[in-house]
């Protein structure tokens, strides 16, 4: 009993001291996509509280936008990527704004499986590139690797 309590306390302190390194986390769920048509698949993105990331559309070419790479092939293509509207982050002391994302948002992909793709479950490798800042400092660009599970069904 004592030993378990001790271990529990150590884990409690260690857990509080070990900081999270994940500024951005991704959430996906299996989507059904039909062959021969364009299918919308949503990817949930969560930005850690206190941080924001540059939007996909930036207003300064020197900034690093949020972008998404998806592994595709000739039988499974992406026809469109839809990023949400950005928020405006005011740079304190200036009249300038940054286009940013914060909190939770969705990115929508349109997957176009070829009509000859066999039915079944597939996992697409994906990668989100982003660059985050908080209220007074900025982090180097980062990459989040994740998977998109899909189930391909024939269009009836």
């Amino acid at each position, binding site marked *: 009993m004592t030993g378990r309590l001790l271990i529990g306390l150590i884990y409690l302190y260690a857990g509080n001291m070990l900081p999270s390194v994940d500024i951005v986390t991704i959430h996906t769920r299996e989507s059904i996509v039909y062959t021969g048509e364009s299918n919308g698949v949503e990817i949930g993105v969560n930005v850690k509280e206190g941080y924001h990331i540059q939007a996909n559309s930036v207003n300064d070419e020197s900034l690093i936008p949020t972008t998404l790479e998806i592994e595709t092939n000739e039988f499974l293509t992406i026809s469109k990527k839809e990023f949400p509207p950005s928020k405006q982050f005011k740079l304190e002391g200036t009249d300038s704004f940054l286009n940013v994302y914060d909190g939770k948002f969705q990115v929508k992909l349109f997957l176009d499986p070829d009509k000859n793709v066999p039915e079944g479950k597939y996992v697409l490798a994906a990668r989100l590139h982003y660059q985050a*800042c908080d209220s007074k400092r900025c982090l180097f660009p980062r990459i989040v690797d994740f998977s998109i599970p899909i189930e391909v069904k024939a269009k009836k």
Partner: protein
Amino acid sequence: MKANLLSIILLVSSFASYVLCAQSEQPMLGQIAPSFKLPGLDEKMYSLEQFRGKYVVIHFATTWCPFCNAEAPYLEQLYKDYKQKGVQVVIIDVKESKELVSKLSQKFNFTFPILLDEDGAISTSYAPEGVLPDLPRDEVPLASNLILDKEGNIRFYSLLNTTNFDAKLTKIKQTLDELLNVSEKP
């Protein structure tokens, strides 16, 4: 049983004390700034020691850092305003190539040295111990501003002294004015 419980309490208390102590001290402030010798965009070598006898404002930057870019024109103006008062400004660009940084310099027409910390070693040396421990050390100072006094001691570090980004460098100018007023007094 009582002895075991006491042991646990003592262990937890000492652990908590260690954490609290580490968090309450302000690392680096008042200490000698880490030395460096870095190449500049102008292909000259610059050492921190060559600025001894001046107040030095150091800004850690990259070309893609939005806060750095917003601050840039105000940093250039600060240099122009304080240069004759014995203040030197330098930017230390972190982990970028000379070619990329050259574009930044041209964009803002900096008249002070831009130094290249291509491997991030100097930036690492300016990461205060125990601050933002989850980040790679060379990332910690990015977008920060420091003021060193004439002896090379760190008198201001925005990472530690401020809570929000300040493009117009209000706090830095205030601190410089205070330091200059003190040094000018008979």
